[in-house]
């Protein structure tokens, strides 16, 4: 616990110092040292399973400075500090172009404060402390999102983010206050003992409040706006870690509420299916690389929700193996997503940094100019598609295995399992389409514009964090059986009984996986050697890409990102509602043709914008109240008095 306090104080102090003294290096050093200290604090509970707590009096009403790191908190602290430190290193190189135009000390303050507030969110055990940290997290990340405040999209994104998190917090306040009024205290440990109706309402409140932050569909609308607008290291931290705070909160409340009825799990599975499928579909339709990644975060949050939903089903129906597999899969996928999504955002940032645009249609051929970044991005892409032998596969494997357990069970559970299987399979296929498109169009082929031609490899400070994250993806992919050997520890707080993990047989499966991947590596090496041996001494020619008879192919004739996605987009047109602007060539001497497609978010277009407009229209009807006529104002006064007199005295 001392390490955590040390970490928090280092982060805050260095942030403040960076701001006041205008020295970026202090901020960077503080972030690294602070995160390292934080990692130490998380290590003990994860390794030994013992939680440590600290409770100090805090003079805020109903508040107490009650911190605790149990294995679950530590499990969330791990990616937080890891990604926090790596993104900070990355930021040092990434921010270089901005250094001349504005002082950056402030950015470092907000960054470090964001990391610190997230650490507080994860460890707080008092509602007031939790909410304060939660809102501080929102505010600091808001200021990071609007880093380029002179850009309109950044401002709009910042605003929608701020609003979304504020509305979410409104639900959370009710949630905690309600819990607190039942318990007579706002300490987490006192929460609980609720009748089922109240517990159900509270669960819904938590689902909405935390789901807004996590990005459950349709509460995700802020996400595809804010993540692209933020600087890439911030996007990495937000997408990789911050949205998981929503999942953390949901789990923490779930722990307080107890196992609950089966419909909770059903609801989570439904939320997961919808978020996952729609998230990846919208990701497929995007042409802004970071926006694509943001939607893919919605997808992955959906997968996590699926896993957790299966876990909840397992717990409420009393199937320990399902509970263990669902929760472990969901949590592992959460950790994995933190790694590969951060990696991909950092890669996207490197692309934007070096090519000057994030529009996929204008990129291409970057693998030649940026071989390192391309390699890391490819690795991240393979991982995020849930392909072997990387970490993404392991998480989805566990969830799928849980789903198959469910599908083999009796009754409704089989339907949930089948839904989960179908959804994950579809998501996996669509994700593969999405990321072959992202990687293939951006890094492969020929440059599609001058932007892409001028690209160059980024500096070491930006490559090292990517390398570390990539290494993490590989390590989890290959080392899962050992990493998850003590999954019981972080599953324990979720009510998964000791031994359920071992009983689920997942350990053996994971060993099988690792064996398989070792075999894969061996075969790949052997095949590569074989090929080298075959080609040794033979002529290896070079030429143009085969042009199918057309003599002068140009880079503009390459398949575009839009056309790549077109078959799936048109198949799912009823959901996506892509807008096409087509100018067909006409006449004997046709002029240039033009096709533009945009896919605005269905939830914001179909749900929130109309709701906002309806609200505006409704409230506009009351504007006459301020009509400007003095006599009527006085009349208003008199009538108010009269009405009150008659009502209250009559």
């Amino acid at each position, binding site marked *: 616990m001392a390490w955590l306090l040390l970490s928090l104080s280092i982060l805050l102090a260095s942030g403040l110092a960076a701001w006041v003294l205008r020295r970026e290096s202090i901020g960077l050093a503080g972030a690294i040292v602070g995160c390292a200290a934080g990692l130490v604090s998380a290590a003990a509970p994860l390794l030994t399973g013992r939680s440590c707590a600290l409770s100090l009096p805090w003079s*805020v009403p109903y508040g107490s400075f009650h911190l605790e790191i149990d294995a679950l908190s530590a499990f969330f602290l791990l990616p937080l500090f890891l990604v926090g430190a790596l993104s900070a290193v990355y930021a040092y190189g990434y921010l270089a172009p901005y250094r001349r135009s504005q002082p950056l000390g402030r950015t470092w303050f907000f960054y470090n404060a964001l990391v610190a507030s997230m650490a507080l969110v994860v460890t707080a055990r008092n509602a007031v402390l939790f909410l304060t940290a939660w809102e501080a997290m929102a505010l600091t990340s808001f200021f990071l999102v609007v880093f380029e*405040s002179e850009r309109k999209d950044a401002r709009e994104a910042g605003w929608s983010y701020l609003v979304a998190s504020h509305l979410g917090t409104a639900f959370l306040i009710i949630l905690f206050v309600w819990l607190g009024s039942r318990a007579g205290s706002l300490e987490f440990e006192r929460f609980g003992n609720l009748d089922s109706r109240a517990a159900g309402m509270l669960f819904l409140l938590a689902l909405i409040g935390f789901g807004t932050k996590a990005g459950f569909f349709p509460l995700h609308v802020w996400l595809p706006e804010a993540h692209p607008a933020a600087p890439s290291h911030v996007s990495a931290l937000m997408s990789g870690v911050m949205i998981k705070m929503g999942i953390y909160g949901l789990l923490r409340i779930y722990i307080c509420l107890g196992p609950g009825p089966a419909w909770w799990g059903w609801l989570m599975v439904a939320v997961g299916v919808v978020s996952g499928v729609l998230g990846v579909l919208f990701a497929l339709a995007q042409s802004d690389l970071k926006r694509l990644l943001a939607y893919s975060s919605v997808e992955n949050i959906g997968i996590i929700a699926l896993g957790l939903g299966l876990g909840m089903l397992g717990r409420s129906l009393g199937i320990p193996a399902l509970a263990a597999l669902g929760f472990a899969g969901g949590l592992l996928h959460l950790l994995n997503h933190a790694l590969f999504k951060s990696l991909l955002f950092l890669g996207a940032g490197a692309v934007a940094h070096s090519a000057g645009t994030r529009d996929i249609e204008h990129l291409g051929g970057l693998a030649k100019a940026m071989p390192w970044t391309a390699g890391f991005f490819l690795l991240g892409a393979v991982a995020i598609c849930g392909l072997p032998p990387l970490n993404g596969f392991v998480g989805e494997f566990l969830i799928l295995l849980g789903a198959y357990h469910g599908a083999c069970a009796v009754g409704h559970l089989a339907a949930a399992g089948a839904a989960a299987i179908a959804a994950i399979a579809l998501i996996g296929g669509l994700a593969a389409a999405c990321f072959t498109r992202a990687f293939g169009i951006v890094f492969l082929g020929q440059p599609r514009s001058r932007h892409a031609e001028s690209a160059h490899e980024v500096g070491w400070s930006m490559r090292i964090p990517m390398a570390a994250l990539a290494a993490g993806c590989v390590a989890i992919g290959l080392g899962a059986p050992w990493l998850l050997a003590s999954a019981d520890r972080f599953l324990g707080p979720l009510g998964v009984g000791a031994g359920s993990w071992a009983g689920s047989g997942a350990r053996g499966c994971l060993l099988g996986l690792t064996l398989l991947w070792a075999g894969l590596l061996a075969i790949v090496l052997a095949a590569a050697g074989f090929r080298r041996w075959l080609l040794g001494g033979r002529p290896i020619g070079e030429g143009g890409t085969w042009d199918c008879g057309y003599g002068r192919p140009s880079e503009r004739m390459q398949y575009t990102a839009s056309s790549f996605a077109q078959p799936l987009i048109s198949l799912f047109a009823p959901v996506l509602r892509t807008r096409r602007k087509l100018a067909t060539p006409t006449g004997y001497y046709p002029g240039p043709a033009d096709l533009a497609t945009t896919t605005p978010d269905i939830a914001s277009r179909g749900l929130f914008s109309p709701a906002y407009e309806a609200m505006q229209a409704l409230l506009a009807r009351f504007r006459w109240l301020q009509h400007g006529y003095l006599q009527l104002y006085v009349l208003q006064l008199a009538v108010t008095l009269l009405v009150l007199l008659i009502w209250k005295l009559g």
Partner: protein
Amino acid sequence: MNGLPQPGLAALVLLPLAGCGLCWVLRAPKRILAVTWLASLLSALAAAPAVWACLHGRALQEAQGWLALDALSAFHLAVMYGVFILSSAYAQIYFDGGISSGELSLAQVRQFASLWLGSLAALTLTLVSNNLGMMWVGMEATTLLTAFLIIVRRSPDALEAMWKYLLICSVGIAFAFIGTLLVAASAKGLVQDPGQLLHWSRLMAAASGLNPKLLKAGFLFVLVGYGTKAGLAPMHSWLPDAHSQAPAPVSAVFSGCMLNAGLYCILRYGALCHALPQLADWSAGLLRLLGLLSISVAAVFILFQNDGKRLLAYSSVEHLGIIALGMGLGTPGIFAALFHTLNHALGKSVGFFCMGRLGQIYGTNDLRRLAGAARREPVWGNGLLLSLLAILGAAPFAVFLSEFLVLKAAVEAHRAVVVAVFLAGTCIIFISASRRVIAAAWGEPAAPARLPGPRAGLAATLLVALPLALLLCLGVWMPGPFRGALERCAAVLNGGR
């Protein structure tokens, strides 16, 4: 503290008046303005020992009980002095340009300074009087004195606003007086000495014998009457006009002190009602109702508001609504509401400071035309953004905490409607106000600014940063004595319980 000589409460009223006299002697406009600051500061210093003692649970009475100070009034007094000191300091900056360019004549500055100090005296009188009649006199005097503060710079709009303010508030205050009379009638025969008939402490002591019917009627009159001064909907109609047309320091004082004083008066009567067992929740219900109405009305108008000062004005309606709501939610609510009073006063003052200065620099209060203010005028622009975020309830600023406490009180009282309306209203306000202020702070500059204007100096920076820092501090750390003081205030309203 006991060792220090304590100036009498009457002296607190007289001290600003002395400053007032001084203004008519001096001839240099800037010095006259400095006097307003010094006089506010001196009054605050003079009041400090008494306020300190009362916040620690003592109660003072003097002049045969005509003047009194208990924790509640001491708290409001402290907030008022704080706002006055800040606003007077800000007035030096705000009027600086006008004085240098000769736009403001000596007479105008004198008029401003003396009215300013006069209002301070009147507000002090309202807060320190134990006699409800005297309290009324102070309140009415405040209305009359501040009316001319609105038209320091004469313009048709300012005149219109001033006339509306004057007339509506006068009518309201007249209602309040009828209410006072009705309450006095309700106590007929209970208080022996007719001279002490309207002494609040006497009435409280004899509360159980009050005629409930008359008390109810009286409270309704008082609620509408002082509610007009407090800016509670639907009696708020004068507020946006007056706040937007008055010079910014005056708007700050309006929002930070005068509205609170109006509500303070209602609270005194509310305590009388509360003391009657059969009316225990009756007055609270009315406060909740008006509170919710205010929040809703503010939401309607903030949604469409492009004028920065009007936006701040409507936000004052909202926050007074929140305070009233909290006051209607029992002891935890009162605690929260008092805390909110302080937070709102601090945040709103800074908001008006920044908005006023930006309005001067850009020559307009239209937020759309201020676009990019944070880059061009870092202190005022960022100040506006931060103060608005603070006012809107973004944590870790203290407003978040106090609103949380109000909500907690509402949930614990099982008032689902209150919770729903409160959240809906504040969320609508958050959505619309934050959008506009973000655009104002960072947007692409639409038009060149009117004044090149001097850069904001250290004083300006401090003026903006200190209250915000204080808000931040209170948001994460509430000192024990402060908490104790708030609890004592709440106890006053519960008749010492």
